[in-house]
């Protein structure tokens, strides 16, 4: 069975590859220094590391969409903003 029906491009393959790598990295991180216990951050909700990754990824998706809709198709800035946002989420949420 070929995969032509899935219409892969290297860009989307990279996208999914990065997400898969993130999940692997999170697993390795948890094994190397366990810290997955929930904690309460600035939002007042209990989050684990996995929750913070979810919040980072979902937030990044909306940062990209907002940039695309309001500014333009140059998404490198949105990517930079998302990285800052993700670091902030992991640090304070």
């Amino acid at each position, binding site marked *: 069975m070929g995969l032509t*029906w899935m219409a892969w491009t290297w860009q989307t393959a990279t996208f999914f590859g990065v997400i898969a790598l993130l999940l692997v990295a999170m697993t390795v991180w948890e094994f190397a220094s366990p810290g997955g216990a929930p904690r309460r951050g600035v939002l007042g909700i209990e989050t684990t590391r996995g929750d913070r990754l979810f919040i980072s990824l*979902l937030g990044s998706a909306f940062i990209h969409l907002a940039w695309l809709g309001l500014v333009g198709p140059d998404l490198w800035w949105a990517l930079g903003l998302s990285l800052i946002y993700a670091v902030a989420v992991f640090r304070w949420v």
Partner: protein
Amino acid sequence: MDKTWNNRAWFMVLPVLALVAFNAIIPLMTVVNYSVQETFGDNVFFFEGVIWFQQVLNSDRFHAALGRQLTFTFTILAIEIPLGVAIALAMPRRGFWVSVCLVLMALPLLIPWNVVGAIWNIFSLPDIGLLGRVLNSFTHYNYTREPGDAWFTLILMDVWHWTSLVVLLAYAGLQSIPDAFYQAAKIDGASPWAVFRYIQLPKMKRVLIIAVLLRFMDSFMIYTEPAVLTGGGPGNATTLLSIDLVKIALGQFDLGPAAAMSIIYFLIVLLLSWIFYTVMMRGEGQQ
């Protein structure tokens, strides 16, 4: 207290993961792949980058459909949740009538969605439908022509179809309250409102969270019933997101824009569900 974590249990989840991969993750990946390309069929694709996303985000058509979708979802939530709780409170707690009420409540849930649409389509027809005829004897009503009437019928249909789900869930929550709670409230001379506010509502909280989430997600993705009832009309008055999506994907065969719209749609559902869940589960940890 130190808890022993045993992550090996996660391996038990693998079969489910494989199943989900086939029915959700792989199709979703394909949609992502489609969303950055243009195709004219024959499995030939041309890379277009983020142009479809930009097009959808800036399209008035999408904004209007999203606005209609949000209006629909929050209207039916505002009606179905309080109404469902009220009916559950009014239902008998024991005796013969319990089964009668439960069966009556379960009936609308057993009817296939397209049949519900067809029933209401005929029931509301202004010239021969029962509802249409009755309404027309008081006022002018024609859901096939007037947007307001179409919305009224659509919301009435959803409330008829799905309030039962909220009733059944809320009723299950109510049944789990031991009699001792009510007796204590009686001794304290608590008013019916106080009983509801401090005993029944907190005990129903968890099932109500499930009810709100289920109704939110289902109503946000609703397709069959409005498609059969109004087909999105009159004009575009009841074209909700899913109906618009099907029009773009299958009507116009614009797979790229449709895929981009699906992803935006999916992200909105994910975000709103997460917000609902987080807000409602807040403080659950201390209880």
